């Protein structure tokens, strides 16, 4: 029997110890916000926090979380940094398909908790493990700066304000 606390709720799980946290969440706890992208810690879609640290849940067995705290995307609306990041994500219209974004947000929140005002380079380093096949990277950088309340850097990633005025005719 494995005991894990997910977003503040403790679960007793009678499942094989090698079950990845990802599948324990999705199949045994019916929490679907954490996504499956690669299953081998290559894409970051499954990122959750284990005792506050970002981990790839697809490659971390549930036994490893025994007695620990898991935080998922579902809890971010109750997290002060999480809220800011979610709002910035919506304001900058980051998401395209959205599938990678649970993981992107979990990585971004972890980054901002350890480094409240990251540079572009620090963002790139922290987010390099999160693939977005839709290619939302430039907006991710911008949204992290705006969640960090760094309008200067957010602007550096901004697109031209006057883009759509080129109306001929």
């Amino acid at each position: 029997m494995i005991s894990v606390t997910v977003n503040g709720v403790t679960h007793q799980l009678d499942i094989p110890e090698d079950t990845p946290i990802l599948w324990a969440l999705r199949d045994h706890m019916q929490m679907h916000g954490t996504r499956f992208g690669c299953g081998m810690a290559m894409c970051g879609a499954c990122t959750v926090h284990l005792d506050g640290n970002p981990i790839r849940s697809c490659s971390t067995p549930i036994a490893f979380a025994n007695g620990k705290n898991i935080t998922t995307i579902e809890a971010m609306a109750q997290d002060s940094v999480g809220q800011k990041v979610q709002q910035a994500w919506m304001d900058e219209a980051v998401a395209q398909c959205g599938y990678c974004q649970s993981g992107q947000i979990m990585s971004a929140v972890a980054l901002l908790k350890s480094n409240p005002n990251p540079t572009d380079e620090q963002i790139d380093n922290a987010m390099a493990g999160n693939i977005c096949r839709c290619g939302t990277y430039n907006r991710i950088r911008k949204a992290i700066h705006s969640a960090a309340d760094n309008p200067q850097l957010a602007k550096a990633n901004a697109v031209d304000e006057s883009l759509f005025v080129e109306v001929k005719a």
Partner: protein
Amino acid sequence: MSTTKTLNAATATENQTVQIANVSRRKFLGGMGMATGLVLAARWDMAFAEDAKYGRDAMPNGWTDNPNVFVSIATDGSVTIVNHRAEMGQGIRTSLVMVVADEMGADWNKVVVEQANANEPKYGNQNTDGSRSMRHFFEPMRRVGAAARHMLEQAAAQVWNVPVSDVTTTIHQVVHRPTNRTLSFAELAELAAEMKVPVAASLQLKQPSEWRYISKNPGAYPEGTTEKTGQPMAIDGRDIVTGKAVFGADVALDGMLVAKIVRPPVYCAGVKSFDATEAKKVTGVVDVIELPSVQMPSAFTPLGGIAVVAENTWAAIKASRALKIEWDNAKAGDNANYDSVAYRQQLEAAVQQPGKVVRSEGDFEQVLHSDSANKTVEASYYMPHLSQSPMEPMVAIAQVKNGKAEIWASVQNPQLAKDGVAGQLGLKPEDVTVHCTLLGGGFGRKSKPDYIFEAAALSAKLNGRPVRVQWTREDDIQQGYYHTVSLDRLEGVLDSNGKSIGWRHRSASPSITSLFGPDSGHTAVFENGMGFNTVPFDIPAIQLENPAAPAHVRIGWYRAVYNLPHAFAIQSFAAELAHEAGVDHKQYLLDLIGPARKINPTSIGEHWNYGENPAEYVLDTGRLRDVIEMATSKAGWGKTMPKNRGLGLAVHNSFVSYVAVVFDAEVTDAGELIIHRADIAVDCGPQVNPDRIRSQMEGACVMGISNALVSEITAKNGAIQQSNFHNYQVARIVHAPKEIHVHAVNNRMDVPMGGIGEPGVPPVAPALCNAIFAASGKRIRTLPIANQLKTS
């Protein structure tokens, strides 16, 4: 025929649906005499004006603009609008719904979106690919919204007993102008539902100046209707950031089993024998089922293999690894010898020989040997197979029970899935329901419903237990429908002024048509029409040939499809010619394109034109020139660049849109590539959702960088050598340009609307390679770039 008088689409019965379907079908069959309030005179005229059908009229099941199908208003004032196209990141659930909402005067904050099931007879075509959703449904959806507005106004006029000409709609309410009385949509909901659907000819569409959402820039939306940034919130924006968005794997059914299938590594191989003893020992395994293998052409039939069915995903995956399978490669014939290194040599040999002539103007051979031929230039460009690899691997849920099938899937072409499941199981299409979830990316892969057929077959075999077939990333990369592999050889003849007087292009690549019939090895009209025979250059002698290239894996659509190799080759070669001629690349490119003119696609012989009417959608070199001018001016073309840094340009028209890209790239002394900036100019005609246009261009830029820089699928002994993102790489945040600037031109209603999902990708790779050349003098002719720039 009775018409549906309710404005409540949610309560429309299947009967009514079928009636609408009949009308729509008859239109295509050429039947007359069914015109009712639902079928609009203008539509009939259009349909019979000429035999050939184009655009939305040519798509299976066409379109409808019946508001009863798409709009319902509840008595609390909420407006439910149906989106019938697949949402995969292009934002169509927001954009199409926004069109309806704007035309009907609905307040965005009171709009709810309902995702349609597969039902083309009811909704019109739902096949979401080819960058078609907005260009085919903008006009019908405007009429849907306008018709709903007219019905609300009719209802209000009736309540007040005033002429309808005295009432007008503002935001979510109807106003009686002389007295300023108002009735809200909520108050009018029931009565409006009883109003007759107005005929299209009587509809007054809004003037662009009256639009509140359509074509508005971020920040330009009216007060009070908006979120913080002043733009309509993406419909799924909040659900995505809170993890609530429902993708294909997020539907949970009681008693649902999970299947993981081990498919043959070689296309068309079968199972010789297998041993499931160890697999069955894994806790949670329910069954191990052998599935039939396929033969070419396999179309969308699943590849077969061995399915492990279990109570949960992990058990299925774990047990699948414990299977011992001996494959029967003899069944696969030649495919078992497919080797990417040898195949490239085969393509290289093929393009040395004349191929099937695709287009011939002037006499290339004569020009080549003429006195004016001062210089000849030759180069070949190679692009490997690619895997779409959307972040959400393929997944489908099926429950086949009591003569009915119910499917939940993330799918680009739901009707194809529905008809296919019906055919496969011997059911009537109306007994198959396909629920469409959000797609975690598609890029063409989810246009092929093989994974849905797998789920249906397994549920049927398991006596109707619901089954989720879960593809892993390895499955996705190793058993895909790959982007073609290509060799494009170009020869250019320059006169003594460096002017291009002869152009020969031989393009060899396996065809998607190999999926559907005997493989001729030749690319089809629609493939050649993606930038090969449509080369827009003003050169006296143009010779285009297509040597044969047989397929040994499943070839399928990949975002922008054959435009990718054609643009890479043509736009790289144009830069090479400019270099040989000693002329500035931009100037040379403009000269190649020639003066602004409208080329009728029929004038180049076999044409496809993305299914659009050649009289309406001409190849407009003026628009090509416009995007070149815009991208280069924004990038500061001609300025002095720092050491190791250069600007690279490419332009391409595809999906009836025009896109130019300029990269500012640096190649360090160590051979490291730094992409400082991308300037992308796009002309897709009228811009419905400018921010989504921009994000599609940004995403296309990043995907183009994946294609150019890191992605490659190769085969050896018939099997794909890559298996996950460690060896099939795609662009990460570190590869993204430091800045992407998108500039849209020609936002005007007098040019026909183009696509936006795909056309951004093709110019990216050649523009990047041209920038690398400008920065370092190194010319890239083989993709991906990978380590080619490394100096040590």
